[in-house]
């Protein structure tokens, strides 16, 4: 039994972190101080990419200024510290995802490459003619196209779990689509276009009852909620560093060791081998088997700093705060005449896709930009989602923990300005 004072300390420590001190947090992000078209920047395009805190910028700078060298090969001082830093980042990500081993954490360029890796390595080895891959109707193109390529290569079939008009997956349809030919399920943890948080733990359990492995596209989830891969039980989990307030060009594929061991390499080259002769090559151990060539070392170091930063703020506090922002923004936008929100799932992350009667999202985007408000307008790389809701595109405001209710007010005022221009 723990001494009472420790329990008290832990409680007060959690209490001090929540609610978030957003004003202080904003000081950590130099870009949030800038102006756009003479107005303060209101950055609401976080689903596209997150802004970078100074500690991440400093980590990348420090790496290039004081440690730059190649890793896993030099016997000189710089190579040793660079290798140690890069591998320390891997260990940080392992803890961040609660993976059971650092060998399960593969550095990739981003979510897209993570999914392509699984499609081409796991898929080409284990998916055969007549087999099926199951995805959902709300996937980003990066969780559709790699599977289409695989299906074409091996003669498999891509099947799609439909959703209802709120943007929620139809679980009974999912159950119906799982069958003996299904060799892999790949679904978004959080939808980038709709904000829907899928019941991924349940989806994994249902697939596992039939011994079907599951890949989760965590690009929109990992920056906003606690992800515990062992608790979720998923076989693969991919996310991008740049959406998690780290550098671009770096991301993570988590895979269970038993799968990664059985999979052939994705790319051949240096670092992924242990012995090469012209007759035969022996592959390196995990995770290096999947990391051919010199990686994005600075990116890996920066991602480690981003993971530390986000963990320091606390993902529980982030999730709670963003939920509050979402509720506030949803209510405020709903007062705008002719505005319709696309994506009204019960479980939602802080993503607000909307359309305005008689105004194309692209025009909304331009007017908002003139007010300093950065949103995304378009199909969000999810064209089938747009087709499902019968719209060519949407305007999308997506939030992060550094956004404020005052910024939501600026957004709503800017949307009223759109109406003034177009009506």
């Amino acid at each position, binding site marked *: 039994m723990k001494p009472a004072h420790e329990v008290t300390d832990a409680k007060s420590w959690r209490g001090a972190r929540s609610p978030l001190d957003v004003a202080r947090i904003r000081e950590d992000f130099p870009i949030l101080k800038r102006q756009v078209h003479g107005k303060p920047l209101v950055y609401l395009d976080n689903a596209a990419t997150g802004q970078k805190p100074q500690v991440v910028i400093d980590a990348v700078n420090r790496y290039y200024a004081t440690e730059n060298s190649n890793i896993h090969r030099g016997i000189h001082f710089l190579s040793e510290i660079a290798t140690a830093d890069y591998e320390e980042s891997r260990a940080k990500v392992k803890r961040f995802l609660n993976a059971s081993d650092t060998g399960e954490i593969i550095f990739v360029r981003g979510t897209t490459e993570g999914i392509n890796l699984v499609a081409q390595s796991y898929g080409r080895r284990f998916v055969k003619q007549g087999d099926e891959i199951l995805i959902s109707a709300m996937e980003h193109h990066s969780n559709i196209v790699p599977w289409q390529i695989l299906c074409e290569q091996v003669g498999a079939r891509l099947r799609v779990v439909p959703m209802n008009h709120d943007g929620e997956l139809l679980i009974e349809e999912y159950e119906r689509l799982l069958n003996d030919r299904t060799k892999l399920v790949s679904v978004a943890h959080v939808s980038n276009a709709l904000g829907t948080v899928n019941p991924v733990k349940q989806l994994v359990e249902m697939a596992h009852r039939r011994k079907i492995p599951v890949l989760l596209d965590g690009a929109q989830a990992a920056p906003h909620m606690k992800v515990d891969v062992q608790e979720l039980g998923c076989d693969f989990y991919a996310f991008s560093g740049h959406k998690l307030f780290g550098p671009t060009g770096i991301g993570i594929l988590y895979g269970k060791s038993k799968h990664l061991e059985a999979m052939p390499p994705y790319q051949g080259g240096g670092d992924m081998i242990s012995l090469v002769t012209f007759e035969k090559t022996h592959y390196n151990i995990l995770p290096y088997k999947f990391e051919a060539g010199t990686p994005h070392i600075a990116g890996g170091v920066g991602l480690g700093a981003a993971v530390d930063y986000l963990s320091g703020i606390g993902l529980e506090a982030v999730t709670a705060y963003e939920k509050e922002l979402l509720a506030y923004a949803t209510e405020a936008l709903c007062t705008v005449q002719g505005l319709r929100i696309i994506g009204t799932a019960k479980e939602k992350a802080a993503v607000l896709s909307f359309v305005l009667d008689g105004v194309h999202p692209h025009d909304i985007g331009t007017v908002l930009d003139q007010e300093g408000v950065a949103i995304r307008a378009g199909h969000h790389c999810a064209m089938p989602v747009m087709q499902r809701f019968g719209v*060519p595109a949407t305007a999308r405001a997506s939030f992060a923990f550094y956004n404020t209710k005052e910024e939501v007010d600026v957004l709503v005022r800017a949307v009223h300005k759109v109406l003034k221009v177009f009506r």
Partner: protein
Amino acid sequence: MSELSDLYQEVILDHNKSPRNFHKLEGATRTAEGYNPLCGDKVTVYIKLEGGVIKEISFEGSGCAISKASASMMTDSLKGKTLAEAEGLFEAVHKMLKGEMDSDADLLGIGKLAVLSGVCNFPARVKCASLSWHTFRAALQGGGGMTSTE
């Protein structure tokens, strides 16, 4: 600073609300589809050519105010033009949208289309305005395939 009112001029908003020649053209001799993958704008241009003259021209599709107004004004200004005149207009519009017009005299030469000159101050929107023109050109060149702004 670029002014919104330079981009969204009354004439443009009017063409957006009530686009001219906005229908399928029965008996078209040339047609092409254009697509802007960035924002999802789609346009189909129909042309009826007779003896090297654009007898009739129309369009269909969905898109933002700029792309719709540009397509609408394009059909208005191309009707009755010879192919050579149309090519000249294409070049002039292209130059205007890229902000490469040398003088106001150049702008005068393209008539009503000059209201689109504000677009060059909004780089992200240039493709919206040029989509219909590229699609028009693709229709003339035949092939009937899909034109993309990318």
